[in-house]
């Protein structure tokens, strides 16, 4: 029981609205959206903010569904994570999932390119990505990440924590300023 109280205190201290740990599926994403919608309604959040937060969350979670590791890693260590926090002026969405180490270099390059692009360059990147026919059945992660940065006007924060020779835990964080859409 002490653990429960500690966890509750930590959630309150860190302004965490929601924590989910486990595997993600479309059904889980739908459920999480319903929960966040209700939480937003309870605090009287605007429709625009709700929509933007849900948009970012869906992109992050669908990326995990499509690109995340499906195999169980080290006794079910393949589960993923979603945290949603609100610190007054920003919503902060953090996701985490294991990825194969072979994907790290290309993912870092992609995020770095997106983070270092101007608004106009992001628009051009978006147009290339959306019209690229090779950009495919599976490969829409770039388009999702470009869209997140364009809509939130914030850089993506990320981290890779090594789990084993084969896998690392990839954490991605996005900040959504409420002021962007409340005016």
């Amino acid at each position, binding site marked *: 029981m002490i653990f429960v109280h500690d966890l509750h205190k930590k959630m309150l201290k860190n302004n965490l609205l929601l924590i989910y740990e486990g595997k993600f599926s*479309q059904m889980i994403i739908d459920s999480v959206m319903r929960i966040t919608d209700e939480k937003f309604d309870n605090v009287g959040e605007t*429709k*625009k903010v709700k929509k933007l937060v849900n*948009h970012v969350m869906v992109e992050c979670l669908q990326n995990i569904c499509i690109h995340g590791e499906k195999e169980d890693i080290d006794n079910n260590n393949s589960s993923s994570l979603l945290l949603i926090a609100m610190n007054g002026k920003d919503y902060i969405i953090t996701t985490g999932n294991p990825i194969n180490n072979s994907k790290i270099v290309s993912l870092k390059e992609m995020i770095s390119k997106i983070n270092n692009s101007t608004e106009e360059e992001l628009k051009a990147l978006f147009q290339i990505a959306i019209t690229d026919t090779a*950009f495919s059945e599976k490969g829409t992660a770039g388009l999702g990440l470009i*869209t997140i940065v364009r809509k939130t006007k914030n850089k993506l924060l990320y981290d890779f924590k090594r789990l084993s020779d084969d896998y690392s835990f990839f954490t991605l964080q996005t900040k959504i300023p409420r002021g962007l859409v409340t005016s």
Partner: protein
Amino acid sequence: MDKLNLEGTEDTPTIVLDSENNHFEISGRSLPEDSAEFYQPVLDWLNIYAANPNPQTHFTFKMDYFNTASSKLLLDVLSKLEDLNGDGHDVKVLWFYQEDDPDMEDAGEEYQDLIEVPFELKTFSV
């Protein structure tokens, strides 16, 4: 030709492709788990329709929200309309967005930049 009529769900839009009644519309939310699979019947229907289209094809989009995977497939749908227009047929895209929804307005403007087809942006209220 047979109509394609898909009722909208929490994750998928309402789709009406009805050449007999000259009604072509995609509306609602689009975030299916597999966008390519979901939109394939729409693209197939448009391929068949293109062989013998109506004198006028006014295609309505009235989206509330779509994810980026769907945005790519919506562009594929628009590209089919662009081809039809390029073949000399009377085609127009009517892109509706809610008055207080700049996201859907921006999305319409982006598509307007990307395809060569008469394109009208219009607002609607709920």
